[in-house]
C-alpha cells in the first residue's frame, strides 16, 4: 500500500503569500496548449502540483458509436497520434474477439511489423522531445531532436509507401490489414532499420557519455515499485521501476509468441532507467521487425472479402476487452457490440492517462527544472489522455 504520510500532498494555496503559485501551461513551450500543471513553489522547490487535463478532449468514445467497424480504425489513430498504429490495433482486436474472427498469419505478421516500426518511430519522437525539454530549443536538446526527427521521417516514409498517409494510417481492418506491402518495401524497410540501429548507438554515446545529461536524468523522478503498482502505470515506466510486465510476453497476441525478443527491466525507477528501457526497446523492436520480415508467410491479408460498403462488417452481440503493448504501455479497448454495424459502446484505456496520474506523487520535492525532465520521461501524448 501507499505510504500516505510520504505521498500526502500539501494543501493548495492560491491566495498568495510566501508560496508562489506558478502555471506551467497551457500557454507554455513545454505544455504547448494541451496540459496545465499548477505548481506551488517555495523558492525553486515544488511543494505541490495540480495537474489539469482535458484541453484536447474530442469525444472519441462517443464518436465511435456513430461510426461503423470499417470506419473507426482510421479515427482510432487520432487518439494517440504519435503511435497511431497502436490504437487501431487494439480496436480491431476487440472487434475480432467478439466476432471470433480469424486473422490470417500473414496479416498477423504485417500487424506486428507495423506495430514495432511504430514503436521505434514513437520512441524516436520521445527521445527528441525529452532532450528538447532538458536541453533547450537553443541548445544540445535541439540537436538531438533534429537527429531523431530525421530518423523518424524514414519510418514515416515507409508508412507512406504502405498506406499513403504519414501520421494517421487506418492500416488495420477487422479480419486483417487493409493493404499488403508493395514491391520493394521489405528491402527498403531492412535498409531503414539498419540505419536506425546504427544511429541509436550514436545517440547513446552522445547522451550517456555526457555528465550533464546523467546529472539531469539519474535519481530524478524516482517511482518506487510499490507506487508503480498502486498507481497502475504501464509500459516503460512500469518496467523502469522493476516490474517485469509486457503484454507481448505475458499475454501474446497476433503471433508475438513466434518471435524472440528481450523485455528490458531496470530497478532504479528514475528518469535514466526509463530512458535505458526505451533505448533497449528500440533494438528489440528492430529485432522483431527483422524476424518478421524473414519469416513473413505468404497468403491472404484478410479473412474477410473486400468491403463493398462501410456497413458490411457486422459484429454479433457481446463485449470484449483487447489490450496491446503500445510504446507508452498498455492500450486497451473495451467494446460492446449489439449486432449492428456500429459498436454500442466503446471505452479506451489510454496508457498516457494512467501514466500521467503518477506525476503528483513524484514531482513534489523536485526543482522546477525537473518537472519538464520528469514529464518528458513519462512521455504523455495528450491526444490519448483526453481522447
Amino acid at each position: 500500500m501507499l505510504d500516505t504520510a510520504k505521498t500526502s500532498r500539501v494543501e493548495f494555496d492560491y491566495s498568495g503569500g510566501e508560496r508562489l503559485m506558478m502555471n506551467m501551461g497551457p500557454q507554455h513551450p513545454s505544455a504547448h496548449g494541451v496540459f496545465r500543471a499548477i505548481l506551488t513553489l517555495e523558492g525553486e522547490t515544488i511543494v505541490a502540483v495540480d495537474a489539469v487535463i482535458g484541453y484536447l478532449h474530442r469525444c472519441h468514445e462517443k464518436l465511435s458509436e456513430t461510426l461503423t467497424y470499417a470506419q473507426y480504425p482510421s479515427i482510432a489513430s487520432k487518439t494517440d497520434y504519435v503511435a497511431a498504429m497502436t490504437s487501431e490495433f487494439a480496436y480491431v482486436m476487440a472487434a475480432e474477439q467478439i466476432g471470433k474472427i480469424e486473422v490470417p498469419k500473414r496479416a498477423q505478421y504485417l500487424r506486428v511489423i507495423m506495430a514495432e516500426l511504430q514503436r521505434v518511430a514513437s520512441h524516436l519522437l520521445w527521445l527528441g522531445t525529452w532532450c528538447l525539454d532538458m536541453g533547450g530549443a537553443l541548445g544540445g536538446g535541439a540537436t538531438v531532436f533534429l537527429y531523431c526527427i530525421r530518423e523518424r521521417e524514414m519510418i514515416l516514409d515507409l508508412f507512406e509507401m504502405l498506406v499513403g498517409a504519414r501520421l494517421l494510417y487506418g492500416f488495420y481492418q477487422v479480419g486483417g490489414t487493409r493493404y499488403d506491402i508493395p514491391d520493394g518495401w521489405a528491402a527498403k524497410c531492412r535498409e531503414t532499420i539498419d540505419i536506425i540501429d546504427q544511429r541509436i548507438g550514436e545517440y547513446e554515446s552522445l547522451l550517456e557519455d555526457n555528465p550533464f545529461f546523467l546529472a539531469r536524468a539519474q535519481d530524478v523522478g524516482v517511482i518506487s515499485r510499490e507506487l508503480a503498482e498502486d498507481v497502475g502505470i504501464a509500459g516503460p515506466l512500469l518496467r523502469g521501476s522493476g516490474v517485469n510486465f509486457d503484454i507481448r510476453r505475458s499475454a501474446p497476441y497476433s503471433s508475438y509468441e513466434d518471435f524472440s525478443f528481450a523485455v528490458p527491466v531496470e530497478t532504479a525507477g528514475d528518469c535514466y532507467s526509463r530512458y535505458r528501457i526505451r533505448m533497449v526497446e528500440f533494438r528489440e523492436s528492430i529485432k522483431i521487425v527483422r524476424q518478421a520480415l524473414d519469416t513473413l508467410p505468404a497468403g491472404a491479408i484478410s479473412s474477410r472479402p473486400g468491403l463493398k460498403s462501410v456497413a458490411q462488417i457486422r459484429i454479433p452481440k457481446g463485449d470484449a476487452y483487447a489490450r496491446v503493448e503500445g510504446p507508452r504501455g498498455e492500450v486497451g479497448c473495451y467494446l460492446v457490440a449489439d449486432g449492428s454495424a456500429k459498436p454500442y459502446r466503446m471505452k479506451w484505456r489510454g496508457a498516457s492517462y494512467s501514466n500521467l496520474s503518477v506525476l503528483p506523487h513524484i514531482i513534489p520535492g523536485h526543482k522546477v527544472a525537473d518537472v519538464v525532465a520528469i514529464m518528458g520521461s513519462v512521455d504523455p501524448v495528450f491526444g490519448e489522455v483526453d481522447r
Partner: protein
Amino acid sequence: MNPWLYSAISGFIVLNAVIGMVTYVTLLERKFAARMQSRIGPYRVGPHGLLQPIADALKLMMKEDIVPRLADRRVFNLAPIVFLVPCMLIFATIPFAPGLGVADLNIGLLFFLAVSSMEIVGLFMAGWGSNNKYALLSAMRAVNQIISYDLPFIFAALVPVLLAGSLKLSDIAAAQSGLWFVFYPVIGQLAFLAFVVSTLAAENRVPFDILEAESELVAGFRVEYSGMKFALIQLGEYAHVIGSSFLGAILFLGAWAGPGPEWLGPLWMLLKAMFLFLLITWVRWSFVRIRVDQILTLSWKVLMPATLLLLVSTAIVVVWRAGV
C-alpha cells in the same frame, strides 16, 4: 591629436564595429549550429543567407513595443539599456592590435571584470520590472549564478596576469610573444579550461542557460520584452560573449601574434576570438542544460577551490622562477 577627440572617434568606431559584428556573429552561429544538426541554416535572404541578420534587425525594429499593464514601467524600460551599456563598455579596454583600441588602461583586466559583472543589475531589473513569475524566477537564478561564476572567472583570468606580471591587456599580450599562455605547461591548459567553463556560465550559454531555460521559464527575464527592447537585450548578450572571446584570445591565445606581416595582427586577433566563440557555440549546441542547484554545486564545490588552488600554484611557480 586631442586625446578627447581621439577617444570619441575610436569609441564611435569600436561601438559600431561591435554592433555590426554582433549581427553577423548571429548568422555565424546559426550556420554553425545548422551544420551540426544536419541542416542548412538561413539561406533565403541574400546569397547563402548573408542578408539574414539585416532582415532580422529590421523585423525587430518594426515589431510592436509591448509594455505589460502591471509592469513597473520605469524599471522595465530602463533595464535593456542598463543591461546593454556594460556589455558594450567591456570593449573599451580591449586592444585589437598594438596601439589599436579605445583606451589601453593600466588596469585593463580589472576594468573588464568589474564592468562585465555589472550586467547583473540590468538582468535583475528586467526580471523584476516585468512583473511576471517566470521572469522573477529567472532573475533570482541570474543573481545566484552570475555571482557564483564571477569568482572562478576572475581567478582563471588572474592566472595570465600573474604570468605576465601586469593587469594591462597589451602587456599581457606582449608577454606571450614567446609562448602563448595556453601552452604554458599544465597551468595554462587548466586555466584555459576553467576560463571557458566560467565564461559559458557567466554568459548564460547552454549548459548554463538556466536564466533563459525556455522549456521551464519560457524565456526567463526577457519573456515580456518585444521589439527593439528585446533586440537590445539580445545585442548585449552577444556583445558580452564576443567581448569574452576577445578577452580569452588576449589572455591565453597570444592576442595578435601570428605568422605574416604585422598588419595582419587584428585579423589574427579576430580569428582567435572567433575560434573561442565557435568553441562556446559548439558546447552550446551539444549539451543539455543542468539544474540550478547543480550549477551552484559545480561552482562553489569544484570550480572555486580548483581555480583558487591554480592561482596559488601559479603564484608559487612565478616566484620560484623569478628566484632562480
